[in-house]
C-alpha cells in the first residue's frame, strides 16, 4: 500500500505541475491574439468551404 500511496501522491503532483504549466502557457498576453487569429482563420475557412461546395454555411 505504501508504494500505491507514493504513486498516488506523485500522480497528483504531476497533474498539479501540468495544471500550473498550462496556466502559465495559456495566460501569456499573446495567447489572446493567437486564438483570435485562429478563430478568424477557421471562420474564413468555413465561408470558403461553403463557397466551394455551393452550400451556404453560416457561422
Amino acid at each position, binding site marked *: 500500500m505504501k508504494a500505491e500511496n507514493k*504513486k498516488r501522491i*506523485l*500522480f497528483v503532483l*504531476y*497533474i498539479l*505541475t*501540468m495544471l500550473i*504549466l*498550462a496556466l*502559465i*502557457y*495559456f495566460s*501569456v*498576453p*499573446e495567447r489572446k*491574439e*493567437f*486564438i483570435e*487569429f*485562429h478563430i478568424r*482563420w*477557421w471562420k*474564413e*475557412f468555413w*465561408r*470558403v*468551404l461553403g*463557397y*466551394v461546395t455551393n452550400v451556404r454555411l453560416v457561422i
Partner: protein
Amino acid sequence: MLYGNPVYYMDVSLFNMHLFKGLKSDWVEPAPDIINSLNYLTRLLYVWLERVGYYLYDSRLSGFGPIWFILFLPGIIFSFVHAFIKKRYRFLFTGGILLLTFMIHPRNWTTRYVIFIVGLGALSFGTVIDYFHPKQNVLRLVALLLAAYTLLTANSPCIMPEKVKEFLHLPAGERTLSRHKPSNIDTKVRDEYGYWIWIENNVAEGDTLAYTFVDSGVDTSRPFFLAPLWNAGFSNTVVYIKSDTYEEWLKKLGSEGAGYILIRKDSVEDQWIEKERRLFYSLRWMGNVKEKFEIVYSDDTYRIVKYKKGLKNEG
C-alpha cells in the same frame, strides 16, 4: 566530397581549431533583440511559451507547442529521476546525449534546429504513462486535447482560405509565389515580384539567365530566392556571372551562353551596359553596328537585359 566540408557553406571551428573550411562562421540572421536581452534559461522559456501571434513555419520565436511545455518538460524531469533511481542506464545514456547536445547547441532557442529534443520528450512521456498505470488514461486524454488544440492552431497567415479560393480560379501556371505574396516574405521581396513574373513568362527552355549580385557581406543585396530565376518549367539555365572588368565579364557571358542578364539598377554592370548602349546609339547611323544589350524588363530596382551575343539562335 566537393568542398571537403559536410556542412558547407558553414565554417566550423572548435576552440580556435579549424575543423571544416566554409564561407560563413556566423549565423545568417542575427538573433531578435528580445533574445539578446535574455539569459540562457529565460530565452528558452520565452520561446517555449510561444509569445507570438500566430504559427509560422520558419518562426524564430515559436516553441514546440503546448504538448512540449505542459506534458513533455515535466515528463523529462520525471523520467530522468525515475531512470536514475531504477538504474536504467540505457535511458540515461541516450537521454544524456540528447540533453547535452541540446544544451551546447549555440542556437537552442531556435526550435527547428533542436527539434530532436521533442523525441526525448515523447520517450519520457511514454515512461510517465507506463509508470502511472492504470491512471494513464487521464494523461492520454490531456495529450489528445493538446494535440487537437495544436492541430487547430497550426494555421498560418501565409495561407489564408480566401487566397486558396482565389487560386482555385487561376490556371495552374499562374499559381505562383509572386501572385500569392505571402505575408512572411512580402516585405522582403515585393520589389522582386516584377522580374519573377517576367522570367516566368519570357525566358524559354534552353535559355541561360545570368544574375550578377549575391550577398558579399559588404553588399547584402542578392536575389532573395534563386528559384524564381527559373521559368515555370524549370527548363532554363541560371548562372552567376560577376567580374572586376567589363571585358572579363563579357568573356564569361559568352562562354556561359548567357542570353539574359539580371542586374540591379546603378550597379557596375548597369553602368557598363548603359555605356555600351550609348555607344551603340551614337554609332548606329553607320549601319553595321549590332546592338549588344537590349533592355527587355525594367522597374525601380532591377533590369533584365537581352544579351544578343549569348542567345542560342544568335549563334
